[in-house]
């Protein structure tokens, strides 16, 4: 009996460990190479000479990597702020208030869920070009100001908020604005934080839209910046290239390691990444 338990455990750990090695290999190789001098880049898994400082200095000197990160922070924060400010009241209205056009609005929200950004991208690009807004932060953020998914998710949460509390607050003289932001939204904090993680991860890593509306290096968010940096390096200096990749990847990976429960709960709750 005891023997079979051990065998079972090994049988489970063996494939899991093998899979874990594949998952980790690129991260290990990336960090390892970023510490190596150029002539030792291809030498197995050892690390004989430490050239990390030179590689990172070269990477940061060749491309404005920190600027890319700042752009990423600005874009993600701007998108998330507007998404929440727009979606929370709209979701509350759909969940708890009756107004003309409510079912039409909800139908459009659900329809919007089925349409990926690549579909309206062409007309949005033409509109932004005509408005002279290409190569701006606004152009990078605008298509994502409305998250139909956020409206959808928050509406589900708000629906289960007790009507008695809302009625009591109204009798106490609270306006609808106050009810949303003081009572209803705080009660849905798990959903709001799950959505926030989803939003930041999605837009920090998005390449497609910035690639379309941004041509100036100084405005590039991290993925587009990585693309520029990669082209500039032309594959000769692997140490610096991997140092750049490490810098670009680090913020989200570190955030995940710090708040991994929240990340995983967020995925479980929303089912999206």
């Amino acid at each position: 009996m005891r023997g079979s338990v051990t065998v079972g455990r090994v049988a489970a750990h063996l494939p899991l460990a093998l899979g874990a090695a594949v998952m980790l290999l690129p991260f290990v190789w990336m960090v390892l190479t970023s510490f190596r001098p150029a002539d030792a880049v291809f030498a197995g898994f050892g690390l004989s000479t430490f050239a990390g400082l030179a590689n990172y200095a070269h990477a940061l000197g060749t491309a404005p990597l920190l600027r890319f990160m700042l752009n990423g922070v600005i874009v993600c924060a701007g998108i998330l702020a507007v998404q929440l400010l727009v979606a929370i009241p709209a979701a509350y209205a759909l969940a708890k208030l009756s107004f003309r056009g409510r079912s039409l609005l909800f139908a459009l929200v659900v329809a919007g869920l089925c349409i990926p950004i690549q579909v309206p991208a062409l007309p949005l690009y033409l509109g932004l070009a005509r408005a002279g807004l290409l190569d701006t932060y606004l152009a990078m953020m605008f298509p994502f100001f409305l998250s139909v998914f956020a409206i959808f998710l928050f509406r589900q949460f708000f629906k289960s908020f007790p009507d008695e509390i809302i009625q009591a607050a109204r009798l106490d003289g609270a306006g609808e604005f106050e009810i949303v932001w003081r009572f209803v939204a705080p009660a849905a904090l798990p959903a709001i934080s799950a959505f926030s993680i989803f939003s930041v991860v999605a837009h920090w890593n998005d390449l497609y839209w910035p690639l379309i509306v941004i041509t100036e290096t100084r405005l590039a968010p991290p993925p587009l910046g990585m693309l520029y940096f990669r082209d500039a390096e032309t594959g000769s200096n692997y140490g610096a290239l991997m140092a750049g990749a490490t810098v670009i990847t680090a913020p989200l990976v570190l955030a995940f390691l710090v708040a991994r429960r929240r990340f995983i709960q967020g995925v479980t709750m929303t089912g999206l990444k």
Partner: protein
Amino acid sequence: MRAAAATARLDAGLILGAGHAFAAPATLLLLLIYVVPVVALVWLSLTDYELGAVETRFLGLENFARALADPVFRRSIANTFAYVAIVLPGGVLLGLGAALLVHGRIRSRSVYEVIYFLPVTSTLIAMATVWQFLLHPRLGPVREITLALGLGEVAFLSDPALVIPTLAAIGLWQLVGFNMILFLAGLSAIPADLYEAAALDGASGGIDRFLRVTWPLLGPTTMFVTVTTSITAFKVFDTVRVLTEGGPAGASEVLLYVIWLEGFQYFRIGYAAALTLIFLAFILAFSILQAVALDRRVHY
């Protein structure tokens, strides 16, 4: 009495006003981001509009006919389906397998969760560059493995027969941990007494329990994972743009990459609009299923 009724009516009026006021920004953005662009897209797809062209003609369905006869576009459909045909079953089965194995672990569960989920949060553009290096036929460490296996130098990304499977493997690397987390949530929701009941009914051994209890009860999760994985796979773009730019010789040109080239590199807007609508047609069935599944999921 009358005063109370008047107040109630006033309140109802105010609440009605609040409904409109709260929905207004979302409605406006919905019009600007979805409704108007989609209508414009349909109109553009019926024209030969090009950025900077002097005049634009109405073509009717000519763009669609041209697209369906266009060998480049047809190849991109075939390539995309080949990619999906690997990533979809691979992503679902590996995600399920990893979840089943991790679910039984008590002390090591969170370690595996973190490791498998790490690629999901990482920036794919940066990690794709690392993969390119790892898979480099002369310089990468994977070379040691292919040499040891007697395969010689394998040009993963420049061999037309290998490029789609290689990109799919990178896609799987990023996706499996995400699917595993979804399956783990599904597994945790299965009540333990169902397994006890199955055991009393004579279900013996892991496979029997899996077929009688786990697999049927995971149905909704499996359906959800299948749909989201299909959508993700259909939208493959980043790795193609960074690693192959559609090459070698078009062997990795996928739908979104061709649409991006036509629309945003060659600026043949009308034609690209038609391609976008064809792309939407492919993805719509999956998106609708996803919306239905989302509706079920977030009820709890």
